[in-house]
């Protein structure tokens, strides 16, 4: 099958990659662009480790055809920091010890970041629901929710 060109933006940079149409977004991000922060866990739309944001919406990149992202803006976990400074959510994760093995962290960060960008005065239940699509097999959910809560309370500002 013929390859085709995909033009899109990842973390603010323009990319043009030649891919087979069956290539998944997670494969382009990791294998073509070398951005290995995005993880592939279950590969069946379950675990959320591959979560990235496309045009501001969180999606599971293991189950999105990359060609469907033509002209779109993708943010991966590498795109969260600005000018060498970690994002508020990243700092909150650090301060709250929101990781154990760390494999789910990129996906958790992306889901949590998408959530706080649109939620207004969220309840604790809504914070928990915001990471419903992400599995932490170390079961370290409480510290992750604490980090989300700290950010929604305005304890972390963009640096």
């Amino acid at each position: 099958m013929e390859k085709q060109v995909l033009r899109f933006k990842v973390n603010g940079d323009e990319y043009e990659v030649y891919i087979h149409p069956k290539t998944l977004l997670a494969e382009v991000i990791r294998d073509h662009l070398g951005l290995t922060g995005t993880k592939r866990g279950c590969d069946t739309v379950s675990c959320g480790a591959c979560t990235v944001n496309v045009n501001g919406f969180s999606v599971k990149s293991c189950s999105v055809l990359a060609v469907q992202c033509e002209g779109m803006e993708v943010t991966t976990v590498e795109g969260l920091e600005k000018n060498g400074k970690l994002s508020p959510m990243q700092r909150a994760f650090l301060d709250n010890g929101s990781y154990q093995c760390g494999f789910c962290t990129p996906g958790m960060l992306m889901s949590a970041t998408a959530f706080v960008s649109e939620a207004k005065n969220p309840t604790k239940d809504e914070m928990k629901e915001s990471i419903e699509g992400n599995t932490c097999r170390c079961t370290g959910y409480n510290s992750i929710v604490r980090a989300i809560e700290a950010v929604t309370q305005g304890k972390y500002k963009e640096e």
Partner: protein
Amino acid sequence: MINDFHYLKPASLKEALAMYAQYDDCKVICGGQSLLIVMRQGMLAPEYLLDIKHVKELSYIKFDDKDGLRIGATTTHREIEKSDTIAKKYPVLVAMEGKLASIQTRNWGTIGGNIAHADPAGDPGPVLIALKAEIKFGNANGEKTVALDEFFVDYFETKMEHGDLVLEIHVPAPDAKFGCAYQKFNLLDSDMGIVAAAASVALNADGTCKEARIVLGNAGPTPLRVTKAEDLLKGKKLDDKLFAEAGQIASEEAQPVADIHASEEHRRHVLGVLTKRMLKKAFEQAQKAA
């Protein structure tokens, strides 16, 4: 591993229908949240994949007091979940969407794709049937509208033939005294239901039951209407005893299959309980609406 395919990207609905008619071994992708899984498992290996994700003509939510609700096929689950109009007029749809898979899946997956996939464990099917929805689908030669409860034929099979695309879901304006509730039974909130039940109740001015619908999820090859129990309720003054009786009938009429998640017996039991509870919930909503 996904097999190779040729990627077709039509610019409009018209072009999509023309392309679909032209290629025999062709499947349609929109969000692909169901399709890519079965393609990865090798259960589907089409030569052509027709992408309608970008066909914006099919992405809309319209509501009119007389006509009811019209949702375009490529509308995402998340758009339905976040719609203020739908939250006001059909809260059961928003509640159902809130529990459908995960936020990420709802952000990319579409209502048309979910219905076309025709998984009997899917959430929208039972709820939309309880709301008396119709579905419009069509091909290059014309379009057709059928009641959604007649649309599903078998496991992953619908009335649509090759060349047909889902175009629109139409939910009629609800009766004045109307209620509808849905619940699935599962261990993880965002999973598919091990079983599920949707119920709707419309009341006459004197408080008797004008019409009731009971639709079971993952209890057979398609979303399953329990007409025997619906008939039992019609015209009666509803109470807990009737709900329990309807639950009993639902549990007997269901055709669940045992698998790793639950035995057939357990599924029947839970279906009975869910039916009873959802009827009561729908009934109480209908009373309040008065």
